[in-house]
């Protein structure tokens, strides 16, 4: 099948829930705003990730068809940009900033202590799917280094102890504490 043919002929990748799922409507809206043109690819992937938390293969296939972008290019873009993730995130995410100031301020020892306590390295999720550990290039909070983001909330001047304390709150809560 020719990838550059009409999108309708490539609708096989369209997830079944597309029409009724509100999240897909929002993604579709993003594409429509950009005239369903190929140049909307990155904005659309942002939209998918914002609403679904990650990019799965069905979503990539659907976006490729809708925007008439070759499948391999969609995959290339989704893996070139580090902001996009193809893996579902854990229930909670902890982002440790690895910018220069945070590095100087001890970000690596924070990562080490998380590895020791929770057993996951950067980019990994605990086996129970509870906690994901990510690193950021720079959050721009260098004035308060080292910085860490817990479920979207940014916290400055962190120490290993403080980070582990926050993470323990998640795990304790989940065991019904």
């Amino acid at each position, binding site marked *: 099948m020719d990838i550059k043919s009409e999108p309708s002929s490539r609708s096989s990748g369209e997830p079944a829930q597309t029409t009724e799922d509100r999240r897909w409507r929002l993604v579709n809206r993003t594409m429509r705003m950009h005239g369903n043109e190929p140049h*909307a690819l990155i904005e659309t992937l942002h939209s998918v990730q914002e609403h679904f938390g990650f990019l799965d293969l069905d979503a990539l296939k659907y976006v490729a068809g809708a925007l008439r972008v070759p499948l391999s290019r969609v995959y*290339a873009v989704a893996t070139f940009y*580090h902001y996009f993730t193809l893996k579902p995130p854990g229930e909670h995410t902890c982002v440790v900033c690895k910018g*220069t100031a945070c590095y100087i301020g001890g970000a690596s020892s924070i990562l080490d202590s998380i590895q020791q306590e929770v057993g996951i390295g950067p980019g990994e999720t605990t086996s129970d799917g509870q906690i994901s550990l990510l690193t950021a*290039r720079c959050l721009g909070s260098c*004035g*308060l*280094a080292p*910085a860490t983001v817990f479920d979207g909330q*940014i916290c400055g001047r962190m120490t290993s102890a403080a980070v582990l304390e926050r993470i323990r709150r998640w795990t304790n809560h989940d065991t019904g504490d």
Partner: protein
Amino acid sequence: MTLAIEDLEGIAKIEKERQEGFRHRINVCIAAGCLSCQSGLVREALEKEVGRRGMENWCLVKGVGCLGLCAAGPLISVEPDGVYYQGVTVSDVSEILDSLGGSPIGRLHCPAQSPFFTRQHRIVTENCGKIDPERIEDYIAERGYEALYTVLRSMTPGEVIEQVVASGMRGRGGAGFPSGLKWTAVSKAVNNTKFVICNADEGDPGAFMDRSVLESDPHRVIEGMAIAAYAVGARHGYVYVRAEYPLAVKRVRTAIAQAERLGVLGSGIFNTRFDFKIEVRLGAGAFVCGEETALIASIEGRLGRPRPRPPFPAEFGLWGCPTLINNVETLANIPPIVRNGGRWLAGIGTEKSKGTKVFALAGRVNNTGLIEVPMGTILRDIVFDIGGGIPEGRQFKAVQTGGPSGGCIPEQHLDMPVDYESLAAVGSIMGSGGMIIMDDASCMVDVAQFFMEFCMSESCGKCVPCRVGTTQIYHLLRKITNGTGKPSDLAMLEELCDLVKNTSLCGLGQTAPNPVISTLRYFRNEYLEHIDDKTCQAGACKIGSVREAL
């Protein structure tokens, strides 16, 4: 909708009267730095308490942009008394409200007379910490969009460019290309369609100037873009901003919507035939997209891989059309240049580096935060006077400027002026303005390895020298920091640095070796200690564990 200068003046007047109607105004910093130490809660608590006490009519609580001294956050300022409070928590709220009109609270007092505040020269950040970034009226009250009006109603595009040329300003994004020349090139390019792009993909780790400006004063950047668009003949603009800066994205979007609603963006602005629209495009975590051609590719929805230049974007940019790409800080300088004339800016700074520069002070320095100083300010003054020196009584070792493309400047060069040429002479660059201070607890080989790891994983992978060369350099540095380096590795490091610098396709690769080259130049003894003695004086490298394993 057509907007006249009277309307702007009217808005400014109403806004000023509104604000002056309050006997006390409490400005709470709600830029990302202070937000990350809960300034949002402080603001809420203040608002609630003001409401509870029935003070709404004479006490205004206002969220403002960055006050600069992030180290002391959350910061608030109380106007019109000009009192600064630092490290404010929710529990301080009552006391602050009690003290209004009386004497300041000594415990929280942040001396506004300290060199951190007095030695700055604020142009780009003049409104930061003063205005509410989410209210266009507040910007207009500070003469916002007046420059755009002047430009559209009384200047030709050529006259605008003349002012930028006269200002002598050089691009604040890193390379320091004269802005006037860039504008001239785009304006001369023959094409009906042109674009203006604001590069807000502040990728240098350790730099947050652009983020702060966008979070604190987004309209200034929008106004700068509109003026630029008029000058070069563009009708469409893009702000390319990192997705990692959600607050900046939100504020820019809000600002664009407000500007459109008011009519300072859109069709027939100020009743002229000038149309200008701005769209926001999100970066997606690729440092290389700070490079012009990669940024353009990214806006086009493609992989952010640079292409060889020429053709330059001024000729052949976004969608093949002439495109002006300026950094946030460059554009933020435009409205004051128009208001005060190019010569005014040219009067600030040094002979070849005009105006001011915003720096993000971070690392091992007491006053971490955002500062704006005239070009040519002495580096030692920045570190020890404005920055307040090194904490915990430790020894200064180096200051790193220019991020992963820059270099480390040692003690012996601290008395140099900070300008494009001087920095280049000592093997660093101005870069976008990150300034990381390191003390004797920092190992310079480890720092070089940190930056090389960054460049290696940010390399787009297109050209061989950058893709493989940075990896090889990183592996050599890792060998040295883990205690398995050989004396011959230093020569190999130098060879690879030279290769990557001279044969890479884009600026990322061409500058990637700089941190290694500059640390080899000034801190060679540290490399030798790691290789010959297998020791790391700073204690940052884990040599010991490797030696035990051997």
